[in-house]
């Protein structure tokens, strides 16, 4: 029986092996057939959808990748996705890096003046500017852009809400924004409810992009359909395939200097390892190293591409929140002891490979009003133990939860573990508990989260952006689970933006910072990450966006 089987099996094996070989060969030949590129040639170009061709990348093309897709092209509908708005729209002002410092520069605004009381702003609009569909830019478009944020279910309402009559418009009690007066096509004025010395900086936020009233009345797909999403910026969006890629091309009606990059393809590559391989393979011209594992950045990029790395501060703050409604954290001695127990310098070296700046105050490095001389908590675990002991606590008595968002980056997850261990050394039991993002956000917003670590990225170059958000009202402090109790300080934070004199305003912010951080230990500022990008062989230079967003101005990239 066995012999008989073997006799016939040889035929079967031969047929099967032949079939397998044919199959493998066909796969290999197919693979080879489409590519005539030499194995060592890195000039392959992916089409937007990823097919590799052996044709050299077209002149003026910049290819980059992001981990997540944008959700909209409309600035009114997002507080995060600014890559497209930054490039296809303009604003009255832009915050740009000039000689290494962030400066608020005039953009669509030709000239302006501010009344002595800081309430009224008179603007002159640049003339001769047209939208990419040829429609002329007028002061009415600027007014429409403000009003739209208040009436079109927008997410970015904070800035236009500062204008007189904004509440009435938002509640539909008025049909136009009373504090916005249009004199003629190029002249208009804005009257604020209260003085705000940071108003011009706020106007440079991507949220304040200017859209065309005439076009908006005609199209239905603004924000979702590239063809309907029209701006005055240096680029036009020509395609957006959800979860795959989007493409921007140069707007030949742009009023400013012609950029080096004529076409930008941004691909959605959710896997960092794939992004890394694509960059190494020459399929991407620029990579945001914040997307990659820090070990890869250290072992590969910093060694082999050191001269191609561009670094900028991420103008934002990684901080530790301690809820003053927690039975232990309400004691200022406990909060100060926590501040003294965290060795931020070692964390920066070990977890961030030195790619971060230690922060001691609320206003981060790079923001107007940042106080370099503010001394934060010194690392002193023995002093922290003594402080707790003097306050009557015994080892292990203090317990609270360090709530972690499961979507936190790997660096942040390690930061949680590190801080938990450091607090353990002074006898505080800070247990790391992980929540999914939605649950984490719900708990934090309820004001009942004991403690957490997070990062705030600045939207515009003014201290009010961070100070007011966290300490400007009791609701704000509760919504971040801080529950700061000092009403007088909260009132001062809320009033600070209306101090018109810059020197006095800066002095007030710095005094508030000292009070909140050093006296009340209401917050533990930790660090500001550095943002590293790596340029490919085709890129000559790159100036990252001032705030270190992953979004950038394509016009700030120069190709070889």
């Amino acid at each position, binding site marked *: 029986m066995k012999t008989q089987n073997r006799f016939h099996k040889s035929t079967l094996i031969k047929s099967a092996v032949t079939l397998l070989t044919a199959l493998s060969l066909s796969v290999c030949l197919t693979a080879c057939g489409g590519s005539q590129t030499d194995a060592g040639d890195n000039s392959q170009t992916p089409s937007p*959808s990823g097919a590799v061709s052996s044709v050299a990348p077209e002149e003026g093309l910049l290819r980059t990748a992001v981990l997540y897709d944008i959700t909209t092209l409309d600035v009114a509908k997002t507080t995060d996705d600014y890559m497209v708005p930054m490039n296809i729209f303009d604003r009255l002002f832009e915050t740009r890096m000039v000689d290494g410092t962030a400066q608020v520069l005039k953009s669509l605004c030709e000239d302006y003046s501010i009344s002595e009381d800081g309430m009224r702003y008179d603007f002159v609009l640049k003339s001769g500017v047209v939208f990419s569909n040829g429609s002329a830019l007028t002061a009415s478009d600027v007014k429409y852009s403000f009003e739209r944020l208040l009436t079109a279910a927008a997410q970015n309402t904070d800035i236009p809400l500062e204008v007189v009559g904004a509440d009435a418009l938002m509640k539909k009690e008025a049909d136009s924004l009373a504090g916005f007066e249009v004199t003629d096509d190029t002249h208009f004025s804005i009257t604020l409810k209260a003085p705000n010395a940071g108003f011009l900086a706020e106007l440079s936020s991507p949220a304040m992009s200017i859209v065309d009233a005439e076009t908006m009345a005609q199209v239905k797909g603004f924000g979702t359909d590239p063809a309907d999403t029209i701006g005055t910026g240096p680029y036009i969006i020509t395609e957006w395939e959800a979860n795959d890629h989007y493409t921007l091309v140069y707007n030949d009606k742009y009023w400013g200097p012609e950029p080096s990059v004529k076409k930008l393809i941004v691909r959605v590559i959710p896997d960092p390892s794939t992004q890394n391989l694509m960059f190494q393979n020459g399929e991407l011209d620029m990579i945001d190293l914040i997307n990659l594992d820090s070990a890869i950045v250290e072992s590969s990029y910093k060694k082999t591409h050191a001269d191609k790395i561009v670094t900028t501060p991420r103008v934002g703050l990684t901080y530790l929140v301690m809820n003053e409604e927690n039975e232990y954290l309400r004691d200022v001695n406990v909060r100060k002891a926590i501040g003294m127990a965290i060795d931020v310098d070692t964390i920066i070296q070990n977890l961030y490979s030195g790619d971060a700046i230690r922060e001691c105050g609320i206003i981060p490095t790079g923001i107007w009003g940042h106080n370099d001389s503010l001394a934060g908590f010194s690392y002193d675990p023995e002093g922290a133990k003594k402080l707790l002991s003097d306050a009557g606590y015994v080892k292990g008595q203090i317990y609270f939860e360090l709530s972690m968002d499961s979507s936190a980056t790997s660096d942040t997850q390690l930061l949680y573990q590190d801080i938990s261990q450091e607090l353990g050394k002074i006898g505080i039991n800070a247990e790391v508990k992980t929540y999914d993002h939605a649950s984490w956000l719900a708990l934090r917003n309820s004001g009942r989260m004991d403690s957490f670590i997070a990062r705030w990225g600045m939207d515009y170059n003014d201290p009010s952006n961070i100070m007011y958000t966290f300490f400007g009202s009791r609701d704000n402090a509760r919504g971040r689970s801080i529950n700061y109790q000092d009403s007088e300080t909260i009132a001062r934070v809320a009033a600070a933006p209306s101090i018109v004199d810059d020197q006095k305003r800066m002095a007030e912010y710095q005094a508030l910072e000292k009070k909140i951080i050093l006296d009340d230990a209401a917050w533990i500022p930790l660090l500001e990450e550095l943002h590293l990008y790596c340029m490919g062989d085709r890129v000559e230079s790159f100036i990252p966006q001032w705030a270190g967003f992953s979004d950038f101005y394509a016009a700030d990239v120069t190709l070889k």
Partner: protein
Amino acid sequence: MRQSFLRRLAESVVILIGVALLIFIMLRVVPGNPIEIMMGEHANQSTVDRMTAELGLDKPIYVQFFRYITGALRGDFGTSYSLGKPVSSLMRSAFGNTLKLSVSAAVFAWVIGILCGVLSAVRAGGPADHIFMGFSLMGVSMPVFMTAMVLQFFFGYYLHWLPISGSGSWRNFILPAIALGWNSAGAISRLTRSTLLDVLQEDYIETARAKGLTETTVVLFHALRNTMLPVVTMMAIQFSGMLSGAVITETVFSINGIGRLSVLAISGRDIPLLQGTVLFSTAVVILGNLISDSLYSVLDPRIRREA
């Protein structure tokens, strides 16, 4: 036969409605406000409240369910909170990619799996058996992401033969199909081998051989047909699993498919998108089971007669 099929079809509709209700309730019971997630860190509470009202999320749950189910019957699954586009159009575009990936992976898995299984069985204990079973074991035991990364490195980065990621051309699907299909091929080949070895011991196989048929004919036309019964079931389940989303493969190869959409929906608490993808996946699994049951009847006359 037809009655049985219709009964299964009716059961399927009931299951679908049940799943729709369950996922709808679950998503509203778990903590977390989807609007807060959608609006991001920088939105204020009054804006969140306004959006909640505008999307009807402040309405009673039965009103929301009625609106959802009537919309779904018309093919309108709502608008994704996180991608700002109609769920039906997002799923349509994602399903195209998932279908291409699944079909190519399934073809790879079935061809390689069955061939390896048959060759191992007829050469049981020999070197060929060890080689093919080793190949299968590797497929089953290697994590998909590892296989994917090795393939990307070797064929994409080192040899420059195939694209590292994307979904624009059929060539983009070769590496993902192998990464996804190898795992299934391993399972199919092991099942094919063990079942075929059992079948080859049956009396009717001896009868066939005694009639003077060649071993190739005996194996391919007599033994393999009976071997295929459990294998087909496994293939159908695997295929419906692939169709309902190969999350890791789609993520590593940047393929905009159902799996990636599902992950996006879960992480962003995107209720319309999550409901859409869950319902879709349920429908695909139900359909897969229906097809495998029908194939069972085709392959085995006894089942056909019983039905």
